[in-house]
Each structure stands twice: as C-alpha cells, then as structure tokens.
C-alpha cells in the first residue's frame, strides 16, 4: 500500500456518486483539479461539497465512481493510506498533545526521522513557532486554525483539503487568513481544495471555483468568469447578486438576441445567452445598472421604475427599484461625486445598462423572485 502515498499528479474524480440511504449527496460528479492549483468548492450547506471532500480524504467511500491522483486509483483505500491531508472545520486538534506534538503527529506515524525538525519548520511557516509547547486549549481560534494548517502541511501531501477552515473566525481574522492561506499555497505549491459556502472567500483565494448544488457541479471556472457570465440561475444568484427576469426570445439583431421581459424589449449577446430561443431568464449585475431621473438617450435596454429604498454605503449607494412587473431590482452606483444623493423612495427613475453586460440563462422550473 506504500505506493499510494507516492501518487503524483492531478486529482481526478470520475463520475463519483455517494448515497446515504435514499438521499443522494453527490450525484455522478466529474472533476479534475490540476496539480498545484488553488481550487474552491463553493455551495450552500447540504450541496454535497463536504461529502466530496471526505471522499477525497478517504473518510467516506463513494457508492460509485473512482478517485484518482495521477494514474493511481485511491478508491477504497483508507484515509491513512492516502497522500491527502485535511484541515477540519472544527480544527480537530488533539487536545491531549502539545502544539508541536500535534504537528509532528503525521511525520511520526510515517516514521520520519526528522519529524521534529519538520514540525518546527511547519510551525515557522504559519508563524506559530512560539506556541509549540502549548496545548490547543490554550490557543485562540485563529491560532488553532494555523496549527491545524501546519499539522496538515507538514506532511507535504499531494492534495490538501480545507473544510470551511475559516468558518469559525471573525470577519477581520478571516480576511487576514485568506491572504495568509494564499501566500502559503503559493509558497509550498501544493494542490489546495477549499470547501466553503462563502462566495467571497472562494473568489478571493481560488484560481478555479466550482459551484456545487444538489450533488453536482453547476459551473466551474475562474472567479471572474463565474461572476461575469453565470451559466445557470443558481450560479447567477449564488455568486454575487443578480437582477433577473423571465422572458421570451423574439428575434435577433446582429450579435444580439432580442427578448421580451415583462413587456420590455431587452437585448443580450448571443454568446452570453445559454438559450437561443424560447423562454429564458434575463439578468444584469446590480453595479452594471445605471440609475437616472431622465430617460437616457438611445433607448433599448432601459426600464422605468420606482425607488423603494436608498442606502448609502460609502463607496457606493444601493438602490432598490420596483419594476413595472413588480419585481425589485437592486443597483449600485459608485459615489464618484460629492453631491448629496437627491433620490428618495417614491421617485420615478430610469434604469439603463449596456446590453453587452447582460446575460441569460435557462429558466429551469417555476418562476422565482430573482433579485433579493
């Protein structure tokens, strides 16, 4: 079994399925994570992301499918046989061992002669060398988190799994650790797979983000792409906010599709629409929408609405605008000027956006309030 630990290469999941009784947690998942990348599995709780992680770690066995690193099939092997280490959500530090012994635990199990030196180096890397003699209970949440990271990193695993590792930290500390994690990943060059339900966290750190929902991957790609061009309604709503409305394709205009959304003609680039005919779900990101008192020139993508709420956020001002159809859109206007905002709830406004920024996805099922 020793050869499993020497497996090298990209991580691959081949149509992996996991059932718990009647419940399908992960449904025929295919995934390839290139060696050395920072990969994020993003999704709401219960979407199967943690189960996927546990199958990679070997803590769960898939009901069907294979888990491989390079050419080595890991399916069926035990957690302690795999070149994979995990940073657990609750850290799961050994409470009876000192920080140093926690970190040296892995190398010692593998009979490494330099276990203590390596533990020291790993603690150095996460800036916890001064705390080596302490017990986990004597550390703060953030410090425990670093130790948990060191304890996994010290083994130089082929794949490092992070299960919502920042979930228990407060906002400021989380920001710090995000930067830190990214730095460490670049430094050690290992494959990191990071599971989180926090889209902002996934976007800041990962090279590639896979959005998971109900046991399968909705969309995978670099963060910018997911945000800019979501391919499903779920992704559009889960990664950032989106103003959306159901519509029907009525024709084409050059590179653009023309659709009817609540009686308004809107345009969307053909390449930015997942649907070329029939019904679709039209969407625009809030910051791409401009709010003005008068109807902008050169019509097309503009709609009149009524302001419902104005909140001043500093860098930007957020408006909630009720559309003729009754749906609420949100818009962010950067506060480039120093003039006070003169729009008040009840005011009539025009909303406008560049048609090149719009996108459209398949409507999938019942109509739903798109904007929050």
């Amino acid at each position: 079994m020793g050869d499993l630990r020497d497996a090298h290469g990209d991580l691959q999941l081949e149509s992996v399925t996991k059932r718990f009784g009647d419940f399908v947690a992960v449904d025929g998942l295919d995934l390839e994570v290139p060696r050395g990348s920072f990969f994020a599995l993003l999704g709401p709780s219960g979407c199967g992301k943690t189960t996927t992680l546990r199958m990679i770690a070997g803590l769960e066995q898939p009901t069907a499918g294979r888990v491989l690193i390079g050419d080595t099939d890991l399916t069926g092997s035990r957690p302690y046989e795999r070149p994979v280490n995990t940073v657990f959500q609750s850290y799961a530090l050994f409470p009876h061992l000192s920080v140093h012994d926690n970190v040296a635990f892995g190398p010692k199990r593998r009979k490494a002669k330099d276990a203590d030196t390596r533990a020291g180096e790993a603690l150095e890397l996460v800036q916890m060398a001064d705390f080596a003699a302490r017990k986990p209970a004597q550390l703060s949440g953030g410090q425990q988190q670093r130790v948990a990271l060191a304890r996994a990193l010290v083994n130089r695993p082929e794949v490092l799994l992070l299960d919502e590792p920042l979930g228990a930290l407060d906002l400021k500390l989380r920001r710090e650790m995000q930067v830190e994690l990214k730095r460490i990943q670049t430094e050690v060059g290992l494959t990191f797979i990071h599971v989180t339900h926090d889209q902002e966290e996934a976007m800041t750190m990962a090279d590639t983000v896979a959005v998971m929902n109900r046991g399968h991957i909705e969309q995978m790609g670099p963060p910018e792409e997911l945000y800019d061009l979501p391919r499903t309604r779920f992704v559009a709503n889960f990664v950032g906010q989106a103003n959306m409305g159901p519509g029907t394709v009525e024709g084409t205009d050059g590179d653009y599709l023309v659709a009817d959304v609540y009686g308004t003609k809107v345009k969307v680039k053909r390449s930015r629409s997942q649907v070329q005919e029939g019904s679709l779900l039209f969407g625009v990101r809030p910051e791409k929408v401009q709010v003005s008192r008068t109807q902008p020139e050169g019509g097309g993508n503009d709609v009149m609405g009524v302001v419902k709420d104005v909140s001043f956020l500093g860098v930007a001002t957020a408006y909630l605008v009720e559309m003729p159809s009754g749906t609420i859109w949100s818009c962010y206007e950067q506060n480039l000027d120093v003039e006070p905002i003169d729009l008040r709830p009840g005011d009539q406004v025009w909303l406008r956006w560049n048609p090149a920024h719009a996108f459209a996805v398949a409507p999938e099922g019942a109509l739903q309030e798109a904007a929050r």
Partner: protein
Amino acid sequence: MASTTAHRPSATRRTRTWLADHFVMLVAVAVLVYLFLPVAYTFAFSFNDHGKTNIVWQGFTLEHWKDPCGVPGACESLVTSLQVGAISTFIATVLGTMMALAMVRYRFRGKAMSNVLIFIPMATPEIVLGASLLTIFVQGFTNLGLRLGFWAIVFAHIMFCISFVVVTVRARIQSLDPRIEEAAQDLYAGPQSTFWKVTFPLILPGVLGAAMLAFSLSFDDFIITNFVSGNESTFPKFVYVSARRGIPAEANVIGFSMFVIAVALVVAAQVVRSLRTSGSTNQKG
C-alpha cells in the same frame, strides 16, 4: 420619626430578601451536615472507651487507634476487600470499556438487546442478584468446581460493576468529537495507533472515573457479597456480622481511615488536574 418608620420596613425586608436569596443554600448546607453526621459519629466513636457494645459514649481512649488490627478478623477482611476490589475493578473496567466503545462507535444487529442486558442489572435489587447467584453456585457452579468464596465474590462484583463502567465510559466517548479520530486517520495513523495515540488518552479520564466508581461499589458491597462469600469475610461483612455483638471501635478506625485516604486521593487528583490544565480556560468539549 418619619425617617425611622420609613427605615424599619426596609430593614426587615432586607433580612427577608437575604433569607429568600440564601434559603436554598442554607437548606443545602443543612442537608450536607445531615450527610456527614454519621461519618462524624463513626469518627467520634472510634475513640470510645466502650465495653461490650459501642453504642453509648463511655469515655475517651486512643487504644483502638494504636492497634486497629487487634480485633480478630478486622484487618484480614479489609485485605480481602481490597483484593476483591482491585481484581474486580480491573476486569470490569476493561470489559466495560470495550463494551462502551462498541456501543457508541458501531452500528450492529443486537444493539438494542445489548443495551437492555447492560441496563437491567442496574435496575435489579441487589438482593435478587445475590439470591440468584447463590442458587446457581449451590445448584450448578459448585458441581463444576466453582465454589462460594473469594472468587465467587470477585465474579459477582465484576458482574454488577460492568454496567456502571459501560454507562460512565460511554458518556465520555459520546462527548468526544469524532472528527479528532478522523484527523488521526487522516494523519497516517492506522486503526491501532489511532486508538492508542488518540482515542485512549482522550477517554482515559472517563475510564479512571469508571474504575473509581467500580472500586467503591465493590469495596462497599455487602448484600451480594453476603450471598456468595461462603466462609470468606469482606470488611462490610465483618462489620455487619460483628454488629450483632456490637461493632468494635477498631472497625470505626479502619472505616474512617479509608474515608480519609479516599478523600485525600480525590482532592489530590483534583489538584493535579487543575494544575495540569491551568491556563487552559477556554477549553470546549
């Protein structure tokens, strides 16, 4: 004048509030005194210069403390009790801990039945346990060479201690975060080293607590012991048998000494534990 009349009710009210606030505590202290009263009597009457029976105070003497073993059978029975306690505690703790691990960590057929089998001995009056053991020893085991006496006591004590060990250790295992063991596996520890390096050290306090419980149950048992002891005498049996004639004050000396030793051990254990974990105030289960 007006001020005093205004002041007086507030004073009585203050007393009343104080009483209301501290009433529960006062009752609690009274109950604790009640719990300790017989222990104090046992201590006091160990100095009684008694004649035939040690019921009435007759005068102070240190005689009984000089040679507690002077009374025939007293120390022999104490040694027997300690031996029985040690052996049955060890075996019951090992068996019970194994069972607790199985009950918490595995799913298997027959679990509900095992649960019932573990629970019922605790819900059975000791006299029934003792009586049933007596019948099987006299009418069955004796024919196999297993007679009433020292080993019969040990086997019986193991039986009634097991259940208590299981529930104590089980509570400890249930309070463990299963992720910790997963972390060990994730860090290349196989099943064996996961158990010995991680699980066992973490459940050890529960196991030690269970062992202490088992020992005190065994050491103090009289009813079951009385049925299966044959001619063997344990300390409680010695005390009970001599109660007919009057318990010698030496028994009080031994009983009270055991009390002091046990309390000292418990206090020492507490001190050691608080020293070891001092500073680790934010530990959460």
